[in-house]
């Protein structure tokens, strides 16, 4: 045992020239010792001798000299590399192109992913900052919102020692600021005292001390301040807020970037707002947003378990639908979807998806490299043979080939860096981000280089091994063929490439199909040609509103005008479970009714279909007591004939005067909920105007003119309902656009590889084609012969991609209540497309090969 081990150890370090005789000597001693002193001594002595033989002068020569830098050798390696690149510049170019495009695409994607992950990351003590959320449970569903009971903010800190600070803030308010002749509108929030202690902002003027304690304090973002004051300092200056009087600027802070889930241009004191929102003082109302800072090291699951019944506790006898919990603010952006009280993900799915796409693109690019290198290996076999004959070791050859691949990859990475710098701005514009990339930035360029080197290493290692492993004799005999093993590996890799790129194409097509579906879905109302204008300033006055309506309708471009609390897009509107009732309503029925306050002509403006009854009538004064309901509400009421049934909504008892057909008033991710429409002009917030759509410019000019006259203090602001509708699906649209580009890139890189392989095949089969032609094969026949093999590979890749993408995308579509079917057409289109581009790609070489004169290719035989 010991002897065998000793022998092995000795062979490991000893110079190979000395091994035989010294081992022989050792053997002789061993035999002597075996006879004289027994086996255990002999064995031990053998090992001791081996250990003592570890001497400088007996070591393998490599151990000493291998690591010393041999400049001449390195020079040779680089020189050979550049000569090879130059000699095979077509292939080098293909590789550089593929790798550069691959690096550019995947680094851009990774930058996007990184910027998505860094949303909300700017807060100090990020790990302690939490958003307060609330589950509202009704008999059928649980919805999760940011709306929480108002009194929570005053008691939360006292009741739970874990809470270091808590602050309330409102939904965004659009307010008009006036400073002498400067007018500017901003969107901001009313927030309570500790807000700035939790939400980190960088103050340029003023600071967070005693912030929001006095009712006239105003905090402005840098850009809002600049619009009002220019470059002058603003601290302690007076600004008028339309409808709220004078405020003193108490602080100016750096703009809150779009990297925050809570955004605002200004902050005003919460106590002013509560003054005219008395309802926030009750535990059974929701509406206030809350953020909290917990003590360091609080176990969040335990804390959530502790506060689960808090609202119920406060309500006492009355049954609570709400139950609060907190979510780390850093997770708020990526994990925002809750279904029935369970976190189901959110944007994180897109982040994972895009990361996967980035990795796959890199993979496709390195597969190109591997395939081209192994395919070309026969060309370099002679070089390997000759080098080996003159004494080059395997290690040296390995180094040579690795150097080549690392050089190519590094060069491509640098080139990609330049492209990334050029493309980052267009990408920013596309996805609405402010990402930055520069090769001069040390961190970023080092990371790019690392990606380049690792791809170079991964894709270089296999071909280098294959090449340096060639048997000298086989290679130099001249009848050398690349091994069957590397051939089938190459085929497998091509199949894999096309599986990935067709999966990407199919997925993108399905995303597009769903986007089209959402665009064209019959929503139950007409979303085109509706202009929305927020009601502000003098438009709060009902007389002015009546005047506006009649003046707009006087213009032939305007067909209908209606005021309402919301447009048909009710995403975070008012809702109530107990506020709506009828005599037969069972106590157990816990359903949440969405409330829409609409004035006359609302249904007509949106062409919402009335199934029964009538719309609100200006001539009937009692209509303000009555309601119109949708089919869902009618079903829930569960009475024989809901029409004309007596109902009570928030203290007003009237009748159901109409039932409208269900229309999609929330995102297509979810179904249609019960809706109650009531006539309360006091709650109107928005003007909905239907225009003909023929003279949009003229219509808008008219609207602008009338608004300027009636509401001169406010700048004209409008948007089209259609745009707001699309904005709902922002993340789907972004993913759709990114998908388009990046699946295109993936297929492009795969085709580059195919192009290279086709040219290689054409070259290899030149004699075969010559013989075929001599024997009478036609051009078409030869092209088919050439194409057959590649089409088969692409076809297999496509077939594997089908089930893969089907299950994946079916899952994605599952997140929509209203969804398109995957359908056969998508696969047909993708299949045909990949077939077609494959033919085009290899066609060039196939035609060229088929048209060569057989005399040329067979001349030297």
């Amino acid at each position, binding site marked *: 045992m010991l002897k065998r081990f000793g022998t092995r150890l000795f062979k490991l370090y000893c110079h190979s020239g*000395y091994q035989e005789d*010294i081992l*022989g000597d050792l053997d002789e*001693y061993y035999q002597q010792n075996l006879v004289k002193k027994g086996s255990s001594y002999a064995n031990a002595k053998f090992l001791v*001798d081996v250990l*003592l033989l570890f001497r400088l*002068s007996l070591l393998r020569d490599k151990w000493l000299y291998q690591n010393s830098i041999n400049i001449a050798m390195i020079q040779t390696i680089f020189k050979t590399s550049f000569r090879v690149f130059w000699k095979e510049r077509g292939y080098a170019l293909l590789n550089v192109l593929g790798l550069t495009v691959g690096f550019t695409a995947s680094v851009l994607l990774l930058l996007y992913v990184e910027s998505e992950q860094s949303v909300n990351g700017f807060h100090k003590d990020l790990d302690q900052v939490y958003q307060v959320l609330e589950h509202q449970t009704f008999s059928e569903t649980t919805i999760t919102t940011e709306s929480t009971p108002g009194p929570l903010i005053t008691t939360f800190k006292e009741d739970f020692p874990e809470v270091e600070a808590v602050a309330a803030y409102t939904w965004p308010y659009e307010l008009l600021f006036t400073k002498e002749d400067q007018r500017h509108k901003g969107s901001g929030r009313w927030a309570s005292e500790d807000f700035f202690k939790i939400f980190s902002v960088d103050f340029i003027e003023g600071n967070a001390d005693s912030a929001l304690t006095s009712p006239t304090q105003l905090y402005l973002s840098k850009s809002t301040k600049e619009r009002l004051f220019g470059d002058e300092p603003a601290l302690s200056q007076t600004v008028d807020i339309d409808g709220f009087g004078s405020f003193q600027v108490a602080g100016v802070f750096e703009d809150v970037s779009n990297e925050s889930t809570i955004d605002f241009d200004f902050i005003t004191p919460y106590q002013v707002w509560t003054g005219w929102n008395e309802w926030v003082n009750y535990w059974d109302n929701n509406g206030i947003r809350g953020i909290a800072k917990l003590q360091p090291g609080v176990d969040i699951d335990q804390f959530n378990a502790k506060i689960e019944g808090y609202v119920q506790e406060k309500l006492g006898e009355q049954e609570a639908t709400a139950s609060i919990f907190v979510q780390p603010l850093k997770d708020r952006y990526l994990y925002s979807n809750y279904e029935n009280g369970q976190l189901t993900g959110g944007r994180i799915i897109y982040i994972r998806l895009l990361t996967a796409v980035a990795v796959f693109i890199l993979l496709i690019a390195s597969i190109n490299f591997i395939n081209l290198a192994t395919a070309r290996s026969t060309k370099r076999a002679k070089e390997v043979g000759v080098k080996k004959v003159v004494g080059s070791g395997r290690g040296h050859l390995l180094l040579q080939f690795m150097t080549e691949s690392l050089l190519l990859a590094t060069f491509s990475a640098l080139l990609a860096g330049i492209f990334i710098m050029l493309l980052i701005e267009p990408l920013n514009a596309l996805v609405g981000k402010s990402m930055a990339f520069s090769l001069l930035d040390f961190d970023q360029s080092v990371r790019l280089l690392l990606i380049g080197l690792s791809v170079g290493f991964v894709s270089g290692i296999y071909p280098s091994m294959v090449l340096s492993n060639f048997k000298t004799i086989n290679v130099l005999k001249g009848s050398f063929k690349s091994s069957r093993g590397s051939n089938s590996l190459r085929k497998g890799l091509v199949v894999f490439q096309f599986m990935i790129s067709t999966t990407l194409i199919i997925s993108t097509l399905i995303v597009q199909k769903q986007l089209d579906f959402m665009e064209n879905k019959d929503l139950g109302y007409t979303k085109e040609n509706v202009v929305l204008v927020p009601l502000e300033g003098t438009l709060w006055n009902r007389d002015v509103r009546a005047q506006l309506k009649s003046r707009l309708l006087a213009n032939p471009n305007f067909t209908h005008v209606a005021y309402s609390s919301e447009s048909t897009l009710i995403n975070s509107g008012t809702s109530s479970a107990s506020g709506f009732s009828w005599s037969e309503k069972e106590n157990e029925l816990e359903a949440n009714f969405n409330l829409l306050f609409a004035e006359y002509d609302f249904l007509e403006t949106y062409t919402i279909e009335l199934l029964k009854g009538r719309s609100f009538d200006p001539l009937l004064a009692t209509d303000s007591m009555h309601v119109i309901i949708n089919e869902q509400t009618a079903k829930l009421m569960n009475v024989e004939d809901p029409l004309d049934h007596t109902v009570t909504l928030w203290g007003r008892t009237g009748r159901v005067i109409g039932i409208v057909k269900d229309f999609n008033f929330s995102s297509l991710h979810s179904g249609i909920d019960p809706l109650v429409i009531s006539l309360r002009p006091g709650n109107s917030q928005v003007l909905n105007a239907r225009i003909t759509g023929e003279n949009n410019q003229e219509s808008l000019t008219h609207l602008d003119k009338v608004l300027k006259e009636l509401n001169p203090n406010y700048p004209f602001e409008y948007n089209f309902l259609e745009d707001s509708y699309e904005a709902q699906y922002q993340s789907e649209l972004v993913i759709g656009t990114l998908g388009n580009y990046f699946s295109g890139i993936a297929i492009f890189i795969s085709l580059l590889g195919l192009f290279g392989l086709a040219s290689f095949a054409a070259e290899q089969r030149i004699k075969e084609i010559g013989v075929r032609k001599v024997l009478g094969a036609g051009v078409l026949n030869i092209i088919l012969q050439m194409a057959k093999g590649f089409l088969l590979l692409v076809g297999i890749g496509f077939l594997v991609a089908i089930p893969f993408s089907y299950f994946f995308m079916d899952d994605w579509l599952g997140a929509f209540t209203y969804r398109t079917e995957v359908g056969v057409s998508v696969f047909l289109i993708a299949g045909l497309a990949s077939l077609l581009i494959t033919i085009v790609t290899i066609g060039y070489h196939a035609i060229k090969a088929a048209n060569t004169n057989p005399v040329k290719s067979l001349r030297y035989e």
Partner: protein
Amino acid sequence: MKRYQLGEFEEIVLLTVGVLHGDAYGVAIKEEIEKRLNRKASVGALQSALRRMEDKGFLTSELGETTKTRGGKRKRYFKITAFGKEALDYNIQTRLDLLREIPNVAFQFKPC
């Protein structure tokens, strides 16, 4: 003279190789040294001395015939080169010269 430099152990090994002329391989040299000088010599020290002196050019070596003993491994026989002889002579000569230079008085060990 640097180029003739020999360590004490090296010198003994070199001399032993000469003594064993024609039969000087590892085991034999070791046994010879142990027998004549009555001291232990480790394989490691011996082998590294041999190779070192081969590098310096004092010794040459060649592999012998394959035999059935020693697991079929060949022996390496060492021989002194002319240069080795020169070095040996030089070393011994310098020592002798030194010895001769010592004044007679130095060896008169009378009690003072």
